[in-house]
C-alpha cells in the first residue's frame, strides 16, 4: 500500500478539527473522507460509507438541481474542480441517508501538490 501524500494527510487532520462540513476525494474522485460536521449533514458516518468511487457516492445522496432534476456525478462541483483544476461552486439539493432533504451550497477546491500533480479535491458545504 503506498503511503498517502502528505497533503492529503494534513487535509484530513485539518478537516477533522474544523467545524465546517468537509468532504475529501482523491485524484480519481473517489471518496476519501468526510468529517463529523459533514456526517451530520449527510446523515451517516464516514465509517458506514467508506471509500466509494465518484460514480457511486455521486448518487448516494440523490443530488438534484432546484427543479428537482437529478445531477450526474460528473456535474458536481468536486468533479468539476478535479477535471478543470479550478474551484467550483454550486447550490444543490441532497437527500441525506437519514431521509432528510437539504439545500446545500458547495465550494470545491482542487488540491494540487507542489509538483503540480492533482492529489484530490476538497468540498466545503453549507446548509443554505
Amino acid at each position, binding site marked *: 500500500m503506498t*503511503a498517502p501524500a*502528505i497533503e492529503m*494527510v*494534513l487535509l484530513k*487532520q485539518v478537516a*477533522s*478539527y474544523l*467545524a465546517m462540513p468537509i468532504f475529501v476525494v482523491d485524484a480519481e474522485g473517489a471518496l476519501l473522507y468526510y468529517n*463529523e*460536521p459533514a456526517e451530520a449533514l449527510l446523515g451517516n458516518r464516514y465509517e458506514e460509507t467508506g471509500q466509494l468511487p465518484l460514480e457511486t457516492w455521486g448518487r448516494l445522496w440523490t443530488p438534484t438541481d432546484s427543479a428537482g432534476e437529478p445531477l450526474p456525478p460528473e456535474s458536481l462541483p468536486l468533479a468539476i474542480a478535479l477535471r478543470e483544476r479550478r474551484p467550483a461552486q454550486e447550490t444543490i439539493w441532497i437527500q441525506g441517508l437519514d431521509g432528510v432533504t437539504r439545500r446545500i451550497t458547495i465550494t470545491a477546491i482542487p488540491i494540487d501538490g507542489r509538483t503540480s500533480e492533482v492529489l484530490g479535491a476538497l468540498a466545503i458545504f453549507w446548509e443554505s
Partner: protein
Amino acid sequence: MKLTLWGTRGSLPSPRPGTARYGGNTSCVQLDLADGSVVVLDAGTGIHRLPDFGRRTTRIDVLLSHLHMDHILGLGFFGALFQPDVEVHIWGPPSTTLDLHGRLTRYLSPPLFPVRLRDLPCKLVLHDAPRGTFDLPGASVTADLVCHPGPTLGYRIAADEATLAYLPDHEPALGAESFPKHPEWTSGFDLMAGVDLLIHDAQYSEAEYGDHVGWGHSSICHAMTLAETAGVSRLVAFHHDPTHNDSLLDRLFTEAAARRDWPFELIPAQEGSRLTLGRQPVGR
C-alpha cells in the same frame, strides 16, 4: 506532586520478557497531588496497575488525551469505577457531534465490553474538556488540541508549585518545514513551554519515522528537539513502539542523549517508575 508511570507503551500492549523493563502496558500516568487529590492521565492497559485507593479518595479525575484504543483499553478495568462511594470524572476531547458518553459507549458496551457505562457503580461524571484552562481539585489544567489523527488533546497541569505537560501522541513535525524553529507555528508549544516535566511521544527512531510520516507520532529526536526549544527541565520520552524491546530502547536513548549536550534531563519512560515534582504528598 508524585508521578507513577503505569503504562509507557504506545499503540499496542506489548508484554513479553524482552519488554519487562520499559514495560508492555499502554499509556497511563498517575499523579498524586500534595493535597491528596489523584489525577490519572489516560486509561491504557496500565490503569489496571493503579492501587486500590481505599476510603481516602472520594474523587478521581481521569484526563483522556484521545480515544484511540491504546489510551482507553484499560478503562473498563479501572477499579475506581466499581467503587460506589467514589466520584470518577472522565475528561476527553470534544466532538462536534457526539458527546464523550456517546463515544466511550462505542467501546464500553456489548459486544465489545460486557459492562455498560450506565451500570458502573461509581458516581461517574463525563466532561468534554474545554480548550483552555479549568480547575480540578488541587490543580489547574490547560487543554488544547494537538497534531494527531482524530481529536487529540495535550494537557498542561499546574499543581504543587510545579508544571507538567502531557502529550503522549503527537506529531508536531508533520508537514512543518522548519520544525521547531517557529514556536508560534508549533503544535502543542504553549502547553509545554517552560514546564518542569514534559511527557511526550517518542515512538520512533529517526529511520523509522520516515516510513511513518502522518501516523501521528514523533521520533525520539523530534521530542528532544522540541523539549529543548520549549525550555523544559525534564523530558519523559514516552509511548514506546510495540516492536522496540528493552535492549533496543536502551541503545536508542543512549545514542540520542550522547548526540550533544542537551539542556534538560532525558528520562526514558519505564513502567512502574516514580518521579517527583514540586511539593510532595504528605503521608503517601
